């Protein structure tokens, strides 16, 4: 376990963390403001990636594909909101879970129907491909740094929006006590449309950003959605700050756990059992972390105030 390897894995962990944040941010606000459990949020991430691949194929220009993919992800998201989600806000969580599960089944299969089950890929834009030397002997792909920086920039933007704008104030108020905000004359449905649309775009953006480094395949949104749940549970529902810190924590713990669990276990166990136990333990790590956090703080580390 050398220092440069550790540094690389920390960067990888940050990269996973900011992607998780982009997904968790929209999810946590939708929960916070409307008390709406949207299992289909991961679908937006998948659609973002697929749309980027499709538009890149049509335009051969990454920037254009990014913009078109975000716009159409937004349109599809609002379409889903109009057709399905809108009718579920007054229902209990069970109904919401099952109906959004229906949306997942439909969209996952629809994607398979349109683009086939085989994984697709998106090339990294020419200027941003290649690697940079971070330290002597340590090369790191530029694109992954771009993801980290873009994620941090979005987080900063979101922080400013939520903290200093009028809409942001309403969102915070909505996450604290939605009926009260509604009673004060704010059209909470419209506020929710804004939040939902924004969350949809963030998830789509995450999908576009990871498309060049992961395989674009049906169901890619489901596993990351569950990680985003863990992030939200750890951070506290409705809290952007909680989502950000929780995402970085999960990203780092998961990545470092996977890379170093075998090496660490070798200090206590013989190599062959370390190789068997290590991966199993590494994949349990974030859930154990979640269990510990919940045991100490049932409402998460940074719950939205007043809940």
């Amino acid at each position, binding site marked *: 376990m050398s220092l440069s390897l550790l540094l690389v894995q920390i960067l990888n962990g940050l990269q996973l963390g900011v992607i998780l944040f982009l997904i968790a941010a929209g999810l946590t606000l939708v*929960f916070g403001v409307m*008390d709406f*459990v949207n299992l289909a949020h991961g679908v937006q991430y998948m659609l973002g990636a697929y749309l980027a691949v499709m538009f890149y194929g049509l335009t051969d220009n990454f920037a254009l594909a990014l913009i078109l993919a975000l716009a159409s992800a937004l349109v599809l998201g609002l379409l889903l909101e109009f057709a*399905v989600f809108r*009718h*579920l806000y007054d*229902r209990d*969580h*069970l*109904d919401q*879970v*099952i*109906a959004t*599960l*229906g*949306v*997942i*089944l*439909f*969209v*996952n*299969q*629809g994607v*398979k*129907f349109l683009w086939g089950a085989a994984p697709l890929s998106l090339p990294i834009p020419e200027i941003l491909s290649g690697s940079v030397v971070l330290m002597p002997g340590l090369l790191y792909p530029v694109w992954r740094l771009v993801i980290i920086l873009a994620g941090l920039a979005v987080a900063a933007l979101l922080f400013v929006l939520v903290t200093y704008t009028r809409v942001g104030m309403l969102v915070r108020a909505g996450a604290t006590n939605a009926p009260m905000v509604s009673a004060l004359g704010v059209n909470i449905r419209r506020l929710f449309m804004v939040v939902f649309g924004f969350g949809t775009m963030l998830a789509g953006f995450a999908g576009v950003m990871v498309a060049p480094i992961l395989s674009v395949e049906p169901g890619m949104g*489901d596993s990351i959605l*569950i990680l985003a*749940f*863990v992030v*939200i*549970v750890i951070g506290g*529902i409705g809290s952007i700050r909680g989502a950000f810190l929780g995402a970085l924590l999960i990203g780092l713990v998961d990545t470092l756990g996977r890379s170093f669990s075998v090496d660490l276990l070798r200090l206590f166990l013989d190599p062959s059992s370390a190789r*068997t136990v290590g*991966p*199993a333990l*590494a*994949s*349990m790590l974030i*859930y*154990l972390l*979640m*269990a510990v956090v*919940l*045991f100490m703080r*049932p*409402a998460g580390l940074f719950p939205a105030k007043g809940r």
Partner: protein
Amino acid sequence: MVALPAPAVQPRLRWSAEGIVPLVIFAAFAALPLAAAFGAKAYILALFSRIMIFAIAAIALDLLIGYGGLISFGHAAFVGLGAYAVGILSAHGISDGLIALPVALVASALFGLATGAVCLRTRGVYFIMITLAFSQMVFFTASSLAPYGGDDGLTVQSRNTIAGFALMRDEQSFYYVVLGFLVASYLLCRALIGSRFGRVFRGARENAARVASMGYDVFRYQLVAYVIAGSFGGVSGFLLANATEFVSPAYMSWQRSGELVIMVLMGGLGTLYGAILGAAAFVLAEEWLSGLTEHWKMIFGPLLILIVLFARGGLVGAAGRLSRAKP
């Protein structure tokens, strides 16, 4: 002092839907092998064994969701643990049900105890997400169990014997073993709900604070119910591994948990026998639609949304509305 009128004695529910429907269901299951003799018997028996196996897990889930208001979205983890108990024991040459079933029960009960103690500290959306996350934990752990097949799963050498007798080897006797487990599960859950324990558990759904103020430790009651429901999941997994003679992490994927919740919702919450009908409806719909097109989920997904939006109360609720609509 005015003497209070004696409370009207509720007639026993023996002849209401509550009593008749399960009897009809079980009779139909019991008679099926006779009717199936005219068709593709092995196929029909295997299909309905699968329905009953899922029904056992779904009944237990209905106990949690329908009676306790605890929306567990990770019930497939228990099924998977039960199945892996059979698979792992068989890989070590132990293939008797008298060992495998208790191991399956203990494994799923312990998992229920450990995770339930954490999950039940939370409410609502948190509970849904945490049960889901814990089931993912088991899923990924099973996927990384290289000695037991990892992602690919492992083949069970042969069906479990019971005390040395090959009771489950023949498709028809296996069918009746499964039916026996289903009837026993149903009766146990029914008895549990009718008991004093069940009344406290149901009361906690309506108003946890009030039940707590009456001196009951709500957390403890819910934890016991969670462990019991998990153990039934383990039984279902034990039977599933024997039915398919194969064990894989896919048994505990979150989609499988979702399917179990769908079964409960399709049948009708809080009836127990609704869960059996829901399991049958789900498996038959899957079988039928996937025969029509490989993209059957594009039909099933929207169907699910329509069921949620328009068919409240599931099959049982719809039947109730129909019978009430009659003059």
